[in-house]
Each structure stands twice: as C-alpha cells, then as structure tokens.
C-alpha cells in the first residue's frame, strides 16, 4: 500500500492482505540498499495470521519516493512517523542489518510505542570497510557484488532457496541495483558508519527483544550480536548454524519459525 509521510509517498508491502486498523501492527525494516522484497518469506505469514505486516521501503528505496535519509537517527524518527501515518498507536518492529540499528534507535526513542523488537543480523555498530563505502558512494556496482558475496554464508553461495527456482544471490543483487547505488547503498553505508549510539540506545530498551544471529555472518558476527543483546534486559538470542548475514533469505523458514513464536507470544495477533 501507499501512504504519505512528511509529504513523501511511502510504499509498504502488506503481505498480500488488506490493511486493517483493528489488527496489531508489525513493521519490517530492511537493510542497506535493499527493499521490502527481502521480507517476502516472513511478512506473508503474519499478514495471513491476524497482523498488519508492513514491509516498508525506506525513503528513496524500492517504490518509496523522496531522498534516502542520511542518518540512523532520522530513519528511527521516520519509522515512528510511519506508525502515526497508518493510524496506529503502537507497533512491533523487526529489523535486518542496518534495519537493526534503526529499530534499536527507534525503540529507545519511543519506548511506549514499541511493544516487541526482533533483530536479525544485528549489532550495536556497523563500521564499514572504507573501500566498500567508497565504491558504494561512487556508484560502483562492485559494491553490490561485494556486499552479496560477504552477506551470504558458504552454504548460501550454493543456493538452495526454499522458494523453488529462486536464486537468492542474484535476487539480492537485483534488489540492491534497482535504484541508483550511490543514492541508496552509498547513503545507507555512510549512515551505518556514522552511527555511534547503538549500545547506549540498547540499554534503554525494556520491551521483549529477540536477536537472531548466524554462525557464518561476516558482516555482523555472532560476537557483535551477542554484545548488543547483552545490553538489553531479558533479550533472547537464537543462533542459526551454517548461515550467513542474509538469513531471512538463506534460512527463511528457520527465521520465520523463531520469529513467529516470539511475536505471537509477546504481541498476540487479533484472533479471528
């Protein structure tokens, strides 16, 4: 569906079901340079099971208009604006990679609104490799190829996607190249590199929190994810073996199973 935030049109996938204000809201926030499409194997389940599942395209990404936001703090406030714009008073947040920085910051800023937080491949800080950052800011497609290489674990490089026929490295590459690289990936990488408040923000979080980490994640290693989780009271941690940073595609079923249990327990759906 499309709606406006700060006078710019925002696109959010609703998981194939109509938006219904009566249902609790889950917002899925994608990673650097990507789009709502990365969540297709998680959102549709929640949309069919009593939730409004909104997989948003950040400004300037995917089908959303406007310019990309330049800081994680701006993105966090923007997610809060999305909750208001769709007429909800509260939401559950799910983030991947950069989306984790955004949702951690948002939850710390708006603690009364955010009811659960789910982090996938998250860390308290995501400093960027300077050469990768430079490639992305200079619109070099090699930045996307490097990101897709590093973001997939050894097993993920072979494929074997749960959706028959879908080859996820090429799909991820196509998503990241769907808009001008320097305006999406370049801006996002710089925002991640600049963001220093993750650990402090984590200490303020009181809502139920889940961290899903992967043993072969080179971009946000398990050690970093655990460090972040240790700062959040009562945070749960689930570690997926033989999987890289793109866990929501590489191990889509496993991620959905863990996420389903956590969210339905802590933020129940509207019963039919």
């Amino acid at each position, binding site marked *: 569906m499309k709606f406006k935030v700060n006078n710019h049109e925002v696109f959010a*996938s609703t*998981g*194939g*079901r*109509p938006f219904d204000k009566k249902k609790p809201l889950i917002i899925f926030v994608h990673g650097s340079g990507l*789009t709502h*499409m990365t969540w*297709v*194997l998680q959102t*549709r*389940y929640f*949309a*069919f099971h009593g939730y409004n599942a909104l997989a948003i395209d950040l400004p300037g990404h*995917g*089908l959303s208009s406007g310019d990309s936001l330049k800081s994680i703090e701006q993105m966090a406030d923007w997610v809060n604006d999305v909750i208001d714009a769709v007429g909800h008073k509260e939401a559950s947040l799910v983030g991947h990679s950069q989306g984790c920085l955004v949702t951690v910051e948002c939850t710390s800023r708006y603690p009364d609104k955010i009811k659960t937080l789910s982090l996938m491949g998250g860390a308290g800080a995501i400093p960027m*490799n300077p*050469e*990768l950052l430079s*490639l992305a800011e200079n619109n070099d497609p*090699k930045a996307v*190829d*490097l990101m*897709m*290489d590093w973001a997939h674990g050894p*097993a993920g*490089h*072979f*494929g*074997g*996607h*749960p*959706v*028959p*026929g*879908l*080859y996820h*490295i*090429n*799909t991820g590459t*196509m*998503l990241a190249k*769907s808009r001008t690289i320097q305006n999406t990936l370049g801006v996002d990488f710089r925002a991640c590199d600049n963001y220093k408040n993750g650990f402090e923000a984590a200490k303020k979080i009181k809502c139920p929190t889940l961290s899903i980490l992967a043993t072969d994640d080179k971009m946000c290693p398990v050690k970093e994810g655990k460090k972040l989780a240790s700062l959040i009271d009562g945070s749960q941690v689930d570690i997926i073996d*033989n999987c890289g940073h793109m866990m929501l595609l590489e191990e*889509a*079923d496993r991620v*959905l199973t863990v996420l389903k249990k956590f969210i339905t327990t802590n933020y129940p759906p509207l019963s039919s």
Partner: protein
Amino acid sequence: MTDKKKELKPNTYKFDTLSLHAGYQPHKNAGSRQVPIYQTTSYLFDDVDHAAALFNLERGGHIYSRISNPTVGVLEERVASLEGGTAALATSSGMSAIFLTVMTLCEAGDHLVVSSQLYGGTVNLFRLTLPKFGIKCTFVKPRDTEGFKKAIQKNTKGIFGELVGNPGNEIMNMPEIAKIAHDAGIPLMVDATYQTPYLCKPFEHGADIVIHSLTKWMAGHGSSMAGILVEGGKFDWMQNDKFPTMTKPYEGYHGLSFAEEFGPTAFTMKARAEGMRDFGPCLSPQNAWNVLQGIETLSVRMKKHCSNAEEMVKYLSNHESVAWVSHPSVPDHPDHELAKKLLPNGRGSMIAFGIKGGKDAGVAFINNVKLASHLANVGDTRTLVIHPASGTHSQMDEATLKFAGLSHDMIRLSVGIEDIDDIKNDFEIGFRAARKPRLVSNQ
C-alpha cells in the same frame, strides 16, 4: 618490500563451479553428493497451518510435483545462476516454456512482435495457435531492427525472438531491440537455446526473459525433453498499466499483486503459481536429473562443439559440392561483427549450408551419411543433419518458407563432438551420393 594493498574482489562462484554446484546443498539432503531424484507426487505437511502457509505462498516449499519438485528446483536454480537471473521455472519441453511465458504475459486481445526466423513449431504457435487464444503476432525479419519498432502497437505486450535464428543463423541485434522494447515499456523475451549461457548471457544485453529448450545443448546427450524460462529481474512491471495481471490484485491468490510482493521474481512466481497450476506442463524429476548431468559438463562440451563447428565451416566453405555456408564465424556473414560482441566464447555449433544440386542433392546427402544422424533435434553430442524444407519446417507453405529465409537446398547441421576427421569423412560419403543421387540414394 612494499606492502601492496589487496584489491577487494567478490568471491562468488564462477560459471564452471556453478554448473556443478548451484542450487544444491548436500547437508540438507542426507549428505548425498549427487542431487537426489525426488520421485514423488506430493509432500507431507507438518500440520494444517503449514499446509495453509504453502498454499498461500506465505513460505517456500513443495506441495505437489506439478507445481514444484526438489530435483527440478535444483535445475531451476542452477540455470538461473548460470544465466545471471533471479529465478527460473522448468517445464516439460522448450515449447511449453514458450507457451507458459506467453500465457503469463498476455491476455486475449494482446499482441506480440515476433522474429520471423524461428523453429518451425514456434512459428506455428505464434502464427496459428496463439490467435485461437486471442493473441495476435506481427512477424519481423530478425535483422530488421527498425521493423520491430514499427510493428509495436498499443496492445503489444512484448517482443520475442531467437537470438540466432533457426535455421538460417540470422542474429537479432539484441541490445538495440531491447532498447526498442524498453522504450515502449514492454519486455524482450529471447530463446537462447542455441547459445546456452556459456556462449551468451542475454540479460547482459538487455533481455528480460530467457527461454531454453534444455533438451538441446544444456542437457546435451539427446536423452531427455525439458524447457525453462528464466527471469532477469530488471523489468519494472509497474512502470505502466500494460500488465494488470502482474500488478493488480489476483483473485486466484487472495488479492495478491505479483509485482508488489515478488518484485524481481514476480514473473516466475506468476508463471508457477498460475501457469503450472492451471496448465501443468511440469518436468519429471528424472528428466531434470538427466539435464543436470548434462549441465555439469556444459562448458567442456560447448568448447568442443564450437571448435568442431569452426573446422566444419572451413571444410564446407572449401568444398566443391557446397553452394554457400551460413555460420556467424564466417567473415562475410552479415552478422559476423555482432556475433563477436554477443557470442564472445564461440559462435555456436549450428551451421546451415546449401548443397549444389538443390532439393534432390540434399535428399541424397541426408539419406547417405552414416555417422551423422538424420533426425529432428539439435544440440546432441552427436552430429545431426536435417533438410528443413522437408522436415522441421515442412508444415510451412512456400511463402512462409521464403519469409523465414529457408531454401530447398538448405541443410541444417548440428555439429557434434565426435573426432572432426570422422565427421568430414562421413560428409564425403554424403556429398559423393549427392553428386550422383540416383545411383547411390538408398530410397
């Protein structure tokens, strides 16, 4: 010593590695090194919730082998990886892949612009069968790039062609025709059977959908029928209102919009969810496995096919019984320069040549070669020959034959990977018979 900084390079697997490994993880299949053949019709659901989730496309997985099958799924991913595509859907034959592509794209009242130089069965599909579904086509000669532009109408939904036409070896200027298609907001669909992704990756030249008869070089051994459609993932279905079945809520899946939900894989998802469900041209797991065996050696075979073909071009070009030779490697072939650009790894192993003496000589040649097989296939490891005017394209009338660039003296040769001297020796037998058709012909 100077400390040289190492340049960052992506380490994703290369073509030959993907040919052997893409789409398959042994640790998820009991450690089986070879891809298992899942000879089953259907798959257990964990519970009712799981069943509903699969039917609603909420999660990936298999329901019924008409829609998907794990062995076939490995083949689909493998071809998608080799083509540089986002997703693929395998079918029971190349023709069913073309039909499914058209039916996923078009509705009654739509129009397609189609290259005139195609396999005879494909010509008949576009010329005679699709009009029965309300889909009309305008044929354009493959070298008439401007003709493609002129033929586009308000209701045109795409351009279709074989990259190298069958059997005359005319090459479509894919980058220019892709631009024409994209300027009109429609996709370019390319049948790249003759090339395989080893010789050409059409997505790098602007194609949006690539189709293969896997029966040919991809499988390579003349054992199994199979087809596939592969999606490039770049085409924006939402850029205009031409593709409502991709962009508007689809009643068959609870109001799903394929373009919104599946973005760069939307076309394949629709072709599977709607096309395989409703038409059902599914590939058998045994045939998928056979094709996978072929793909494991694709680059090795294609190198030999191409080197043998170039030898045969030289041999035929200098032969007293040959009137003309058409192959993109020949310097005076009209598309020689374009072929160098689009087919950098080799110009393929299909040769068309004219035999002196016309139709009778052609018949005598075909009837007397012993090593080369006379049959209606191409892309076998073995050398194959046919006389198109009396075989693959025999259902065409004179005018259509002429428009398709076919002549009665034409012999189509699919060069195999036998020892090149043995192929030449066999052809000498055929040419001798062609020079004295009544004395040597066995008919």
